[in-house]
Each structure stands twice: as structure tokens, then as C-alpha cells.
């Protein structure tokens, strides 16, 4: 597969077309109906949660939020391959991957409401919290990959980054180190065509991102990121490569950020309605849904009902997050060190004195 779709040949890997019809039988993966339906449901849940989160933000109940609207198949496919023992090293725009790893919406909401406690992801095994400084997390993935090899573990690291992130030096260094170390890392670039307002064509003159794998002597493939079958096949193959000791793989998932960069962004400033509409027909949910319906595995009625359930579930978790215990002064200090310096304790005490004074003044 990596030979057939060697990125030097500039051929994008695709299995179904925009109407959900299989156009590449050879590479149509075997996925049980059950699993496939679950994948669709997961994507639907992510989309529902995503849209709802944007509306919470509009209501002023959370701060900035980066929607993953339109990119759900990438997480969806990763979720089908990623195992409990594998690592997830997220960027920030792959909600489905977070959830698949065991993070909860409540925890994510907590972070977007401005509480670090959300980052604990208690039930998510082997997952780093969100990394805000673009591309810096890819090095962590390479380091984890080293540990996996060192301890001869059977694990894979799934590391996410955006198209803009590929311009950072850390992207280069991470892929290079992972290559040298033959680290079992799957670098998944969500090429959603924009880094905030900057279109992908202004990030680099290279012919896509997958082709950059050549610079590191590693495998790479450009995939239609809105085609869940293709994405699944690519991630699956990549993880087998990695587990077989063949080192890292770079997957470019070509997609489109249907929403704004974040809730504080206004895309009409830098892109056209026409462009948005042109991408609309590639929507990952539409395509999978068309496929499922054609196979009689899904119906609009089921969907409508499910979405209602999901909305309630999202609300429920949101409210849980809203009712999370208040932030305490000690939460500012407690986790700075494993062994807290005296001086930090003193700073906390001094602030407590101020709070007492303030209380007394009332």
C-alpha cells in the first residue's frame, strides 16, 4: 500500500467517492457492520458534541473552543485502530480520538471552561493532554516511541498535528528523530487547508505533506481524510508497520475545517462561500451515511433519534462540568512540583493572608 501510494507519485488514497460508493475495491477494508455502525455513531456523537459546544460558547458558558466539524473521520478511523495500550499524543482538534482513548466530554469541557483538572483524563490510558504550542507535541511522541522500543513493548503512538504545524521546526526534528530511532509513531497530519486564516498553499511549496516523509526516509501516504474507509486502511497499515518494527509513518489526512478556527475566529474574512460549498460534498459523515444507507445499515430515523439522545448526553456532561467544584487557591500551587519548594508554600500562605484581610474588610 505504501508502495502503491508512494507520495512521490502524487496519488491520493481514496476508497469511497463522495456519494459513499466504493471506487477502490482492492483497498476496501474488512470491517464488521457492527464496528462500522459504531464508527458512524462515534462520529455523529463527536459532531453533535462539537456543534453543541460551539453553542455553549455562544452562550458564554465556555471560553474559546476549536471545532473539529468536518474532520470527524480522521479521529473515527484512528479510534478503530488505536488500542488501550497505545498512546495518543493529541494536538487539539481531534475530539473523537480523545473520546476513543477514554477521555470524557466532561473533562474536555472542564478544560474549555478553564480548569486544569479536565486534563487528568482519568480513564484515558496512555494519553497526553492537549498541547497548545503547535507541533511541539510531536517530539513527545517520538520520545514515547523510544521508550516503547527500549522496553520492547507492543505499542503504537498516534500523534496529531495540523497542516500549519508542519512548518514548525519541531515537526522536522520529530520526524527525523522518530526515523532514526525507528520509533513506532504514526504522525497524523490533519490537513484541513488552513492554519487559522493562512491557506495551506502558503505554508509550503511542497506537493502536499505526505511527500515530506521522503526527507526522513520514512513511509508516508496522502489519504482522503473524509473517507473513513481509506483512513482506516491507512492507519491500520501504518500501525502494523510500526508494530513490525519498521518505524514511523506519516499520514496526511486531507480534509476541510468546516467550522471556524476557534469560536473567536470569523472565516468569512479569509475564505469564500464557494470554497466552503465545494468541500461540503466531501463531508465525512454524509459519505459514510450514504454508504450505510445503501447497505441498509442505517436510516435517517435512527439518526434523528440518536442525535436527540446524544444532545441530552452532551448536555448532561456539560452540566456536570459546570457543577465541578470551584477552583481553590491551592490548585494554583499544588501541582507545580512533585516536591514543592518552601517558597511556593509561602507564596500561597501570603495570599491566604490577603484573602483573610479582604474577607475581614467586607
Amino acid at each position, binding site marked *: 500500500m505504501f508502495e502503491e501510494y508512494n507520495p512521490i507519485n502524487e496519488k491520493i488514497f481514496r476508497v469511497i467517492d463522495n456519494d459513499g460508493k466504493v471506487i477502490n475495491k482492492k483497498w476496501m477494508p474488512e470491517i464488521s457492520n457492527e464496528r462500522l455502525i459504531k464508527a458512524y455513531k462515534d462520529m455523529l456523537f463527536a459532531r453533535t458534541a462539537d456543534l453543541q459546544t460551539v453553542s455553549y460558547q455562544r452562550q458564554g458558558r465556555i471560553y*474559546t473552543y476549536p471545532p473539529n466539524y468536518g474532520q470527524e473521520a480522521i479521529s473515527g478511523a484512528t479510534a478503530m485502530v488505536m488500542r488501550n495500550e497505545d498512546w495518543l499524543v493529541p494536538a487539539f482538534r481531534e475530539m473523537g480520538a480523545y473520546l476513543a482513548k477514554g477521555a470524557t466530554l466532561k473533562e474536555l469541557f472542564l478544560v474549555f471552561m*478553564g480548569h486544569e483538572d479536565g486534563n487528568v483524563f482519568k480513564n484515558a490510558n496512555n494519553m497526553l493532554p492537549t498541547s*497548545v504550542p503547535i507541533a511541539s507535541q510531536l517530539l513527545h511522541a517520538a520520545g514515547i516511541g523510544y521508550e516503547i522500543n527500549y522496553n520492547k513493548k507492543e505499542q503504537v503512538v498516534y500523534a496529531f498535528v495540523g497542516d500549519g504545524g508542519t512548518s514548525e521546526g519541531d515537526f522536522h526534528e520529530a520526524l527525523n528523530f522518530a526515523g532514526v530511532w525507528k520509533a513506532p509513531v504514526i504522525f497524523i497530519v490533519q490537513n484541513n487547508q488552513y492554519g*487559522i486564516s*493562512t491557506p495551506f498553499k*502558503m505554508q509550503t511549496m511542497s506537493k502536499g505533506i505526505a511527500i515530506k516523509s521522503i526527507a526522513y526516509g520514512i513511509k508516508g501516504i496522502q489519504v482522503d481524510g473524509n473517507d473513513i474507509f481509506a483512513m482506516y486502511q491507512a492507519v491500520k497499515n501504518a500501525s502494523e508497520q510500526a508494530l513490525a518494527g519498521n518505524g514511523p509513518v506519516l499520514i496526511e489526512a486531507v480534509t476541510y475545517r468546516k467550522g471556524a478556527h476557534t469560536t473567536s475566529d470569523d472565516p468569512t474574512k479569509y475564505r469564500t462561500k464557494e470554497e466552503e460549498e465545494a468541500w461540503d460534498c466531501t463531508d465525512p459523515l454524509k459519505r459514510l451515511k450514504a454508504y450505510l444507507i445503501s447497505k441498509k445499515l442505517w436510516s435517517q430515523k435512527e439518526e434523528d433519534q440518536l442525535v436527540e439522545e446524544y444532545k441530552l448526553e452532551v448536555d448532561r456532561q456539560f452540566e456536570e462540568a459546570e457543577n465541578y467544584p470551584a477552583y481553590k487557591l491551592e490548585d494554583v500551587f499544588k501541582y507545580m512540583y512533585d516536591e514543592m519548594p518552601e517558597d511556593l508554600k509561602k*507564596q500561597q500562605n501570603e495570599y491566604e493572608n490577603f484573602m483573610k484581610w479582604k474577607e475581614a474588610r467586607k
Partner: protein
Amino acid sequence: MKVMNMVNAVNDALDIKLAEDRNVIVYGEDVGVEGGVFRVTEGLQLKYGVERVFDSPLAESAIVGTAVGMAAAGLRPVVEMQFSGFAYPALNQIISHVSRLHNRSRGRFNMSMVIRMPYGGGINALEHHSESMEAIYGHIPGLKVVIPSTPHDAKGLLISAIESNDPVIFMEPKRIYRAIKQEVAEEKFTVPIGKAKVISTGTDVTVVAYGALVREVQKAMQMAKEAGISVELIDLRTIYPIDKETIAASVKKTGRIITVAEGPTSFGIGAEIAAIISEEAFLHLEAPPKRVTGFDTIVPLPKGEHFYMISPEKIFYEIERTVKY
């Protein structure tokens, strides 16, 4: 005169210099079409073209490093770091070249560039979007570090920075980007780098602040006034080179000094000012120089940020304690 907020004022300064000097060019992440995530560069690309105001790929080391080359070749780049918390990938270029090429080449190459960056907390942001690490830049020999507290100063200081042949780190207190409006002259003017400003005179204690906290100190001064305490407020405006004379002269009068700043306490500006005052006005000190600064912690996420951010009440509390010392 025209009513401007700080966003307008910075935009105006850039506009004036772009119009006046073809060597001035402006770039960074999303500063072109979008006009910057804070809209500071809005309209400039349309006015001056994509060769003079443009989006760069997403890479801070490159943004600053290419500016080094441009400056060596005679341009006057004004680059933007989207947030000061994302300037760190550029620190190698800043420490190793921006601050040094003039000295290294014995003055043959000027590093005539400005690195703009919004900084500071109080905007309910995600991690890395709220920090105040100006002390790091202050410690790097070869840089000048400027922070305005008003639209007027922002305009005048930025024009000075762009005209300076030395590299300037220009930090913009994003919290008050739109919060303060002021009449600002429409024509070109400069505010000198390296000069602090006595905002109000007083006799009991000197408070040094800058950026968004000047306003918080002013609120605290209301409380102090009610408590019968007379505060002299100095807006530092330049972090390096610090205007020691103005601070020392004030302390010689008041005998007491408090530094109010958002960055971490240890190795921060409060320490520097304590040292300066010890050196310049030791015999006049009636109380220990006080640091009212951030904790030695990460700036908490929004739910906890109010503990970290320095409130007028906290400032007043410390004023009172210092005066009673």
C-alpha cells in the same frame, strides 16, 4: 486628535511607518488577510500590498530569523509573534542573533527590527496565552524591551521602536487592547524609549508598574486615597534599559517602593527594581522594596486566574502594609 484604543494606536503607528519608509515591512502568522488575531494589522495588507504586509508560514524561529537577514540587508521588519507564549521557538534567534549581530559585526549590521507580541493575562484564555515573561528579554544583553500602557504611548513608542537601529521587543498588554480609549494625535509623534513616566505624584510610597497593571494601580490608588495614603505612580514603559533615575528620584522622596507586575516573582522585574533601589537610594529606604508580582507558578486557566492576577485590592493591601512598615 482621534479617539483610539491600543489596537487602533498600534495599527496607526504601523500605518504611518509603512507609508513613510519603504524599508518597513510587516509579517507574521495571520497578520495579512486576517489582520492578525487581535485585528492589530487590519487593513494594512490592502493598503500596502502583499509584499509589505503578509502572512508567513507557521514558524516563529523562522519569522524572527528571516527578519535578522532582512535587517542585515537594510530592511526594517516589524514581525508579530501571535502571543508572547508562542515566541519561545524564536528565543534562539533572539538570543543568538537579534541581540548580537550588531556587536558581533562591530556595528557593521544593524538589527533594526521590532518583534511585537501581545502578552499578559486577564482574557480568559487557554494555556500559553496569558504569560508575562518580559524579564527574560530584559536579561538578554543587546535588546531593548518596551511595554506601553496607553494608546498614546503605544503609538509613540512603536514609532520610536521602528525607527530605532537597535532591536526592540515590543510587548502589548492584550488585556487592555480595547479597554482603554484615548484621544491620540493623528500625526506622527514619538515617545522616547528608556524613559519612564510619572503618572501621578505622591509622597508616601512609589509604585512602579507598566502595561495593563498601571490601570489596576490607579484603581488601588483610589482606595489608598481614601485611607489617606499618597501614592506616586510611575509607568515604567521600558523594561530595558530601565529608567533608574526616575525611579530613584521618586524613592528618594517617598522612601518606599512597590513593583507591580504580572510575571513570576523570582528573577523578575520586582527583583531588578529592588536591586536598583538598593544601589541608587539605599539610605532613603524606609521599608523594604516590595514585589507585588505573579506567583512562581504557571498562570492558571481562567477558573483559577483570578488568584494569580493582581487586583486593585491586592495592590492596596500591599501599599498599606508597606506604608505601615
